[in-house]
């Protein structure tokens, strides 16, 4: 091992899209680290740059219009940005696998499940057709699909949404990747199915020792699943902390807003769910100062004119806010009560 158990480190990543409307700074200087076996949650509202960050790691950003402008992506000691596209393909699906949001559209409707599952291991593990098929059946059983032997020859439309997401997971894990990126794996599913899928990911992760990045816009989803969380807004990391600490003592007004909007069955039954007022900004035309300022309940004059600093609360906890320490102190005193 050339590194201290770090499987992925992203440093100062910037991914921009050159559009007619100007440069969309979808991801604008994010950094994080993921240790082997850890689970990282990436949380943020729609358009905050969660998907683009992770597609960048896989080098799946379409160029043009997209472009990774700056930053380091080091996967297991390998500088991903320096690799040839052929070498990137050897990592995709083999060492880093991805599950996408919408299982209805992420599987190819024209190909049998068997084909879509077996092609991965034929490609990466050199399986023969027969081996690949047996392996695929094993994977389907692993993700809880009964009579996998028969159902493997179905087409995606013959499965329900939850079942399709199970197939996606089977596909993603079939080469036993070191890193699994799950991009809102449950957003498109019913609530009960959501819980099952999350449970499955958690269980498989524990069994296979995979590191996981779990993307979601729902803090409730990451609570029981992750070791640490980064909160994104307008292409920037607004807060980053171990999960427990982030929930207990958030140091950023945006995080506090997100936390308030998580449904809490114990306390707020029947109460209308809180929502952060306003809409996420247009990242092609950001005003100077803090991008959250127009919606922030704690905003002061300086927020409109000066970009906030990335304040270190402690070694593992950072917050992008002019008043990070104050917000943190408030959170602490609330906990004490």
């Amino acid at each position, binding site marked *: 091992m050339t590194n201290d158990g770090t499987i992925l480190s992203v440093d100062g990543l910037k991914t921009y899209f050159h559009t007619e409307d100007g440069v969309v700074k979808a991801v604008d200087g994010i950094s994080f680290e993921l240790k082997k076996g850890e689970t990282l949650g990436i949380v943020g509202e729609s358009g905050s740059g969660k998907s683009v960050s992770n597609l960048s790691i*896989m080098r*799946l950003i379409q160029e043009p219009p997209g472009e990774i402008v700056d930053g380091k992506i080091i996967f297991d000691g390998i500088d991903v940005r320096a690799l040839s596209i*052929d070498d990137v*393909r*050897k*990592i*995709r*699906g*083999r060492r880093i*696998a*991805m599950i*996408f949001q*919408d299982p209805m*559209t*992420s*599987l*190819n*409707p*024209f*190909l*049998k499940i068997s084909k879509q599952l077996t*092609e*991965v291991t034929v*490609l*990466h593990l050199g399986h023969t057709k027969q081996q690949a098929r047996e392996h695929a059946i094993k994977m389907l059983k692993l993700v809880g699909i009964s009579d996998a032997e028969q159902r493997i020859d179905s*087409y995606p*439309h013959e499965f329900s949404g939850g079942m399709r997401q199970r197939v*996606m997971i089977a*596909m993603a894990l079939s080469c036993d990747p070191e890193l699994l990126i799950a991009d809102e794996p449950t957003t498109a599913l019913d609530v009960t199915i959501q819980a099952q899928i999350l449970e499955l990911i958690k269980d498989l992760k524990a069994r296979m020792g995979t590191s996981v990045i779990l993307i979601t816009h729902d803090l409730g989803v990451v609570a029981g699943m992750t070791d640490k969380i980064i909160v994104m807004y307008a292409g920037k990391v607004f807060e980053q902390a171990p999960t427990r600490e982030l929930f207990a003592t958030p140091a950023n007004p945006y995080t506090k807003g997100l936390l308030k909007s998580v449904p809490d069955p114990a306390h707020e039954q029947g109460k209308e769910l809180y929502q952060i007022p306003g809409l996420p900004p247009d990242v092609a035309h950001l005003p100077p100062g803090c991008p959250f300022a127009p919606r922030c309940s704690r905003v002061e004059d300086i927020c409109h004119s000066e970009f906030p600093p990335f304040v270190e609360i402690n070694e593992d906890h950072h917050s992008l806010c002019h008043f990070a320490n104050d917000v943190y102190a408030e959170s602490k005193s609330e906990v004490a009560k």
Partner: protein
Amino acid sequence: MLSFIIRRLLIIIPMALLVVTLTWGLVRIAPGNFYSAEKKLPPAVEANIRKKYGLDKPWYTQYGMMMSNIVRGDFGDSLKYQGQSVNEIIRRHLPYSAVIGLLGYLLALAIGLTAGTVAALKQNSGFDYGSMSLAMLGLSVPNFVLGPILVLIFSFWLYLLPPGRWGGFSGIVLPVITLSAIYAAYIARLTRAGMLEVMRSDYIRTARAKGLDEKTVLLRHAIRGGLIPVLSFTGPALAALLAGTVVVEKVFAIPGLGNIFIQAVLNRDEPLILGVVAFLSILIMIFNLIVDIAYGFLDPRIRYE
């Protein structure tokens, strides 16, 4: 599936009879008739001929007689080409149209699919702009203009190819190109649009995320979805091409079905008109059926019962 095909085949016959009836009605409603075109016949002679063809009977009797023959597949004899049955005339002239049509179709498919796919994969490249401009041109230049231009260039300036008339491979080249141009252009545009749409879809992103190379992504994952919009166009197009294209056959003096049909209309040769119309409508319906069956094979979500 089988019962679907049988049902569709069974519908073809009444549909064709309906088309024939409507055509017959139109021919009858239009002023004039076969005899009005000819040099005026002595009244006695015309009366004789009318009697022979049953034209002296009331229209419903005529219609009934005609239909009972047609149902048995007999369209009678041509009025113009005395003593030749309509069926025989169609059989004699169809091969010319079929050869040119089929070759034109294959050429259009080869050019259209290739150009469309490459243009989509290299979106906004020189090739994309070039081929799509050419396609625009192909769509906007009518073949009665394109045909003569090609003849001018290749026959009268370069002396490379004969300007028309049937006979040998070289005589086919220009008509086939003329015929295929508009279809190639249309197929190229459909293919490009279809492929672009598919290449943006989620499942293509999944395929890339698996580590597949672009060739596999294209040939295994993208091509089917991209071709579906093309498919629905190619069925009726093939029928139209096989049946002969009036203008191209006229320009290149090819004795195909299109030419015969024009003659029949000008001559008011009622049996021949009805025969060709019935034949064409059946052909189009059969090709549409083939397209629908092909859909079923291409897209597993479509099921016919």
